[in-house]
């Protein structure tokens, strides 16, 4: 066992046999996931799964845990297989459905992800599920479907700026972006911080240069700066694509594809765009 991991010893208490190993590995995997130690989580959950005698009720959680760890390492194909198995064993579990949708989208299986989000919406119509499905519509070039879902997401989470940003992005792609309407959408948001400069760009109130200035002026932790740069690159690139200027969009998309933090939707979206550029 790696140094630094929490271990527990029951004085004079010994658990023995393969059954003990399976659960102990499972518990070690859960602890590792909580600490963000995905390497240990993959090893521990793999041992718990292959031991063969983990309690049946825990098996879907073991696949789910390993799937989450694979996703954190961007190993989307392995994550998808595990989360598929977890979903077979625990049909309709919302948490597994979320992860399954994420893995499917990561593999460009947007129709699968769209179906997952639809099931989530059916179970509980949440803003995040509408936003997730809206993005799948967008990937599938169904911009009317995307617009409809982002409108719903904005209705359910009126203070969240990202459904509005994706709504304007969908309008742009559909050729229906109306700066005056975008200004009205943006005006419903109370926040003036990031991603305000991006919203202003889509509303015709700012320029890519001004957005670049806002990004350069951002301060905070490395994570915050990387996040702002990632989003700035992607959404400004999309704006350039809307102006039919691929030359300006391409380097921004390349940087977003490469540098966006692993859990940001803009990274896979940038890769998708690069793959589909002429």
């Amino acid at each position, binding site marked *: 066992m790696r140094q630094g991991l929490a271990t527990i010893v029951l004085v004079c*208490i010994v*658990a023995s046999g393969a059954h*003990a190993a399976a659960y102990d590995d499972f518990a070690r995997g859960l602890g590792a996931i909580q600490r963000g130690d995905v390497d240990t989580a993959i090893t521990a959950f793999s041992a718990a799964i292959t031991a063969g005698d983990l309690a049946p009720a825990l098996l879907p959680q073991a696949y789910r845990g390993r799937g989450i760890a694979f996703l954190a390492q961007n190993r989307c194909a392995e994550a998808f297989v595990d989360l598929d198995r977890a979903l077979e064993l625990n049909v309709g579990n919302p948490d597994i459905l979320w992860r399954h949708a994420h893995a499917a989208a990561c593999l460009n299986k947007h129709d699968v992800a769209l179906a997952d989000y639809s099931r989530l919406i059916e179970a509980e119509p949440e803003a995040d599920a509408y936003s997730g499905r809206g993005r799948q519509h967008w990937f599938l070039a169904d911009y009317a479907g995307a617009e409809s879902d982002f409108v719903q997401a904005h209705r359910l989470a009126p203070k969240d700026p990202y459904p509005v940003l994706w709504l304007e992005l969908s309008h742009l792609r559909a050729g229906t972006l109306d700066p005056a309407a975008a200004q009205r959408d943006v005006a419903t948001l109370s926040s003036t911080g990031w991603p305000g400069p991006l919203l202003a760009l889509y509303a015709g109130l700012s320029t890519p240069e001004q957005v670049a200035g806002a990004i350069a002026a951002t301060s905070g932790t490395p994570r915050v700066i990387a996040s702002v740069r990632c989003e700035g690159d992607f959404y400004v690139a999309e704006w350039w694509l809307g102006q039919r200027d691929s030359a300006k969009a391409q380097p921004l998309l390349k940087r977003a594809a490469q540098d966006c933090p692993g859990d940001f939707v803009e990274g896979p979206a940038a890769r998708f765009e690069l793959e589909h550029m002429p």
Partner: protein
Amino acid sequence: MKRLLAMLALLVGASPLAAGAEDCRLHIAASVTMGIDEAGGVYLPMSIGSNTVNLLVDTGGLDSMLSDAAVAKLGLSTQVLGAGIHVTMFGGKRIDRYATARDVVFGGLTTPSMRFLVMPDGALSPGLDGTIAPDILRAYDDDFDFANAKFNLISPEHCTGQVIYWTSEPHTEIEFTLDGPHVTLPVTLDGQQITAEIDTGSSRSLFTLEEAERLFGFDANSPLLTSLGGGRSYKYAFKTLSFGGVTVANPDILLVPDAKARLHRYNDRIILGMGVLRQLHLYIAYHEKKLYITAASAH
């Protein structure tokens, strides 16, 4: 706060478990398969009318709760607790309403109606609808068989000390104190004796940063202190945590600034969360005020 919630009434025959002589058998009042939520907590299904809700098992709570969303999904109406009466959650959120559910079934226990406090949305992992708390849990013995994903409510009417049914291997027994409905016991953390509370509703173990700094003599510049989440919580390289016959090496304890936790009456105690507890087979005998513990996978 005055006790508001009704206990589940035992309306079905209890199933016996062998634990020693025939007249000392344990009687299971309810047996339910546990699920594990996104954060590593355990939850249990409960039927309310024709719906099923998933409730986090929260030994650190007061009364069982339903989220606002669950109350809406179930179509329940809410009432205020009373003028000036409220409950404060971890993090400072206030609860001042309750809802009455009808036709409640929990692992074979039934009751025609039961009151739940109404908690704000966003405090639980996705897919969870509320909590099941000591208003129900402490009426029975609680048997957490994590390795088999089973939770049993067991009748407290049994022979004293005759509860270890799951193994013939050695076990440890720890006497505890009830602080209100909460199970507290002395633990030793790196040589310092501290009060700990058993809290299955907390996915990780917690301690207030300020109290840890005072007890262990470190400050914000200590190389053993690591900031997590931009100062929302911290990790300190503790070496051992022990209680009864249990020793945890390199315990995973999050240190939370009191300004974030905002539970001032608890700032001198460690919350023992699921990171530690899931490694045990934990039997809480509330009436005996005793914990019976083996390794989770002892059988």
